[in-house]
């Protein structure tokens, strides 16, 4: 549970957004993975992929497809979008093959990196600000009641409310890393990790 690394991640994602990068990598840890998945669930990231120090090839570019086949593939996906995620190759999807989805994860854990796809809309990054709440020197624990207030823009327990439009706060709870509103639904409390907006 290293908040120092989380601080680095926050800074890095802000910088990457500013530089308008498409893909960035962060070190792999349970915290990072769960947090990034949470971010993806909220819509801040487009993809979260485990890879090596080299960026993974984008899914679409892993094989060149014949234009006619490409059209057919597009039509099939339009009708059944869930087919893109099926592990088994099927006759309906000639262009997609599971074994082509290359995942070269190194054996050495130190060489593993988590690759994140960043999003941009209307010339603005979707993930613009990412700020730590609990710091390595001071941890912030919030109850369910505190979170009820915070999600309704009121400050509680020395933590400011979520006042920016579409602001999210992630906490680490017994049930894993959840967003503040999810915690309020489940009436959970936990340690506040970071707040994200923009």
């Amino acid at each position, binding site marked *: 549970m290293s908040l120092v690394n989380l601080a680095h991640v926050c800074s890095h994602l802000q910088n990457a957004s500013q530089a308008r990068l498409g893909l960035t990598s962060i070190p792999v840890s349970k915290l990072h993975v769960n947090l990034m998945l949470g971010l993806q669930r909220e*819509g801040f990231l487009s993809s979260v992929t485990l890879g090596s120090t080299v960026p993974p090839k984008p899914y679409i570019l892993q094989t060149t497809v014949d234009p006619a086949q490409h059209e057919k593939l597009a039509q099939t996906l339009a009708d059944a979008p869930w087919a893109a995620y099926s592990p088994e190759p099927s006759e309906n999807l000639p262009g997609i093959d599971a074994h082509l989805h290359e995942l070269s994860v190194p054996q050495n854990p130190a060489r593993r990196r988590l690759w994140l796809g960043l*999003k941009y*809309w*209307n010339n603005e990054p*979707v993930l613009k600000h990412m700020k730590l709440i609990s710091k390595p020197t001071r941890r912030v624990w919030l109850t369910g009641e505190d979170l009820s207030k915070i999600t309704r823009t009121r400050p509680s327990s020395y933590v400011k409310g979520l006042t*920016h*439009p*579409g602001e999210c706060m992630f906490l680490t709870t017994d049930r894993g890393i959840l967003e503040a509103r999810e915690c309020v639904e489940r009436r959970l409390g936990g340690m506040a990790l970071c707040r994200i907006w*923009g």
Partner: protein
Amino acid sequence: MSVCRPARCLLSAGFLPKPQATPKRSLHASTIRPARRRRPHYPSIKAEDLKLLNQAAETQFPSYDKSETNILSKRYTPSQIAAIKAAETAIDAKDLLTQSQLRTDPWRLPYADDLSEVDPITDQPEKLSPEDIPGPHAFRDNNDVERDAAIARVTNEQLAKFYPDGIPDGELSPEEERKLHEAMDAAFMQATLDPRTSFHSSNPRTVAALADPRHSIVAPSLPRIENRMVRQTRRLSSEEEEDPRQKRLLQYLDWDKKKLRSIRVKTLVVHGVTNQTRMGKIRSMYYLTIAGNQDGLLGVGEGKSVEPDEGRKQSVMAAIRNMRPVPRYENRTTFGDLEWKVGATKVQLMARPPGFGLRTQHLIFELARAAGLQDLAARTPRSRNKMNVIKATWEALCNQKLPDEIARARGKKLVDVRKVYYGGSVH
């Protein structure tokens, strides 16, 4: 007794005989200087010129005939008339023609005028004084009987002006009947307003003087000149002065003047700026104005000129031209908290619940009011430079992130819980 006789010099001029004056012969070709200077008082006039001169004198300065002299007796006293006649006989009309000159002194009239007629525009009207009214001057207010009689008299007088040939009687057409009634009403109205009907005096001339414009201190109204030039240049008092810059702006925006007047414009920053040139320091006035329609449009404009009015007008036009839409949550506040920085000036704007009001500094207050925001809180933690505060607030308000856009960007549904779940309640 010794009587001294003054010694008279024998050499003095009186006693000695004068020597005989010898005739001197003139040795000069032309006349000597003293003789040359001796000119006649009047230059010699030729006989033909004399005839023409006589004719001109007759036409320009004719002698009075009997009827004209009778008129003179009405104006002047007999002694005055005698003096006038004596002067006229003494002065020869021919001399007036030959000797009179045009005035060149600075106090002359700039136009040719013999001043015999009173010009209603240039000259002050002739006014009479109370001394010109013969008889006693005392007058008092009218009683009802006298007033009625006076009104009747004056009404008849006024009606006579409408119908100088007499009032038409007998069978009248409805048109004529209507006109007669209108004339009678107008004459009656004029009579009631006439001062002659309000006052009574034993001397009728006193009462007549009340209505006489020559006795009145009120100057008569100027005559209405009618010619093509005057008609072309005549301007209605309701017509406003046309500003070509404003006209162009309205054309560009496709607005009418009424809409322009509904825009709230306020000049927030005014200060002098100096430009150092070869010629020296040139001082200009800088203006920063905001313009808003109080319903979601806000613009900020700057203007600078040596003349203050010019700079201000420039800034107003620029502000109106730069108006941009400002998104508002429930048309009263911003969408969430905003933060913007211009230079060293950071501005933080916070959304507030309904009824909160604009609790901000004066510059942000004006901007919010012009934009149509009603609930807002603001902070300027760093520099409070007026210009930059205004610019930062404007940028922040115009570049808000809408929940709609955020939803599209993230691919998630964003719901206004306050509206949907809590029914718009705040607490």
